[in-house]
């Protein structure tokens, strides 16, 4: 559920650039990335439906459109407003890096459906990571203004990244069964991946702010507004078909 919710909420934020991105290429790129993420969310929600004995066709929609904010298990990182282009790039880069590493571990999960899905999704994620990695370098080493915005975005975002690696309730059991990777190990692998890349782009992680480690049922004031928009049509016409 956490995996799926991260994807769907970030997909919505990214889709907000459709028609508004700074250049046409990025309008297309972020619309694509959003669409990929929705596809990945569907895979995870469908897997949940199968585990719970729910209808795999209708359950994902039910979860996405008819859950209230407190029912969502996404990290606060993905629900923050899209901000400026630097904010979007930094968030997406840090998230993509975490996802690539998590999926690499999940490919070896003892739970077969999880391993199969991770194997599929990871190949697509390489494209996202390559894209945002290039943008971090481009903007970090770009103009004084682009560098200033990137550093400011990094300062704002960094405290929220800790929550991506906070253990979920009962996750220890799943780690012991080799179903999912150990979040602490993942966190340090992630730092080893992103910090050198950021430094190459002349960006420094110097935030001393308290990391966000709230449980995933706790959200910022931004999630209700996001859901209100995302769920409006489905809730107004619950049985609509298109």
């Amino acid at each position, binding site marked *: 559920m956490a995996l799926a919710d991260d994807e769907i909420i970030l997909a919505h934020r990214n889709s907000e650039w459709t028609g508004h991105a700074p250049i046409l290429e990025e309008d297309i*790129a972020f619309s694509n990335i959003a669409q990929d993420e929705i596809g990945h969310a569907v895979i995870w929600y469908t897997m949940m439906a199968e585990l719970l004995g729910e209808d795999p066709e209708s359950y994902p929609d039910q979860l996405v459109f008819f859950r209230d904010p407190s029912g969502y298990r996404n990290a606060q990182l993905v629900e923050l407003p899209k901000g400026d282009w630097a904010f979007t790039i930094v968030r997406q880069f840090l998230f993509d890096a975490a996802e690539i590493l998590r999926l690499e571990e999940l490919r070896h999960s003892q739970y077969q459906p999880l391993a199969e899905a991770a194997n599929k999704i990871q190949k697509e994620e390489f494209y996202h990571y390559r894209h945002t990695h290039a943008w971090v370098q481009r903007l970090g080493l770009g103009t004084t203004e682009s560098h200033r915005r990137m550093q400011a975005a990094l300062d704002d975002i960094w405290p929220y990244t800790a929550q991506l690696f906070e253990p979920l309730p009962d996750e220890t059991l799943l780690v012991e069964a080799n179903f999912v990777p150990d979040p602490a190990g993942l966190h340090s692998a992630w730092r080893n991946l992103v910090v050198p890349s950021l430094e190459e782009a002349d960006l420094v992680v110097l935030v001393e702010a308290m990391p966000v480690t709230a449980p995933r049922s706790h959200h910022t004031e931004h999630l209700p507004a996001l859901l209100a928009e995302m769920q409006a049509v489905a809730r107004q016409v619950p049985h609509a078909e298109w």
Partner: protein
Amino acid sequence: MEGITVENIWEVLDEVKDPEIPVVSLAEMGIIRQIEISGETVIVTMTPTFSGCPALQVMKTDIEKRLREEGISSIEVRLVLDPPWSSDWITAEARQKLKNFGLAPPPRHGGNLQEILLIDIVACPYCDSTNTTIKNSFGPTLCRAIHYCDNCQQPFEQFKPL
């Protein structure tokens, strides 16, 4: 249903084209993985190229529709993720068709996708020059990237390696 074999079904389904690239069939693209006949039921197993592909539902419906035209009423289309679809599965004929359609076929990567993404030399489908520049890893559909040929001055799309 009498006397219909798995081979017949493969032939029939070869007429079902990719909704976004109508010059190639789902079978040639490696999207249809397996066909089985179990009693009166025809079971078609397919796998998505990119998991967010919006054409997936259309493909499923097209397969069912074509089989019903053959008088087959009991059809099951299964979706599997494993093994994950690879652009290496696209047949040689289909690659040529993609090229004629103006889509540069994906390079074969033999499972080494990351390496291919780093090198990323793509030949122009119009003049075969490799003097090309990638303009965007993301294109009008999830499976396409946008390139520019510096030789014939023509923008073109590529079917992305996966």
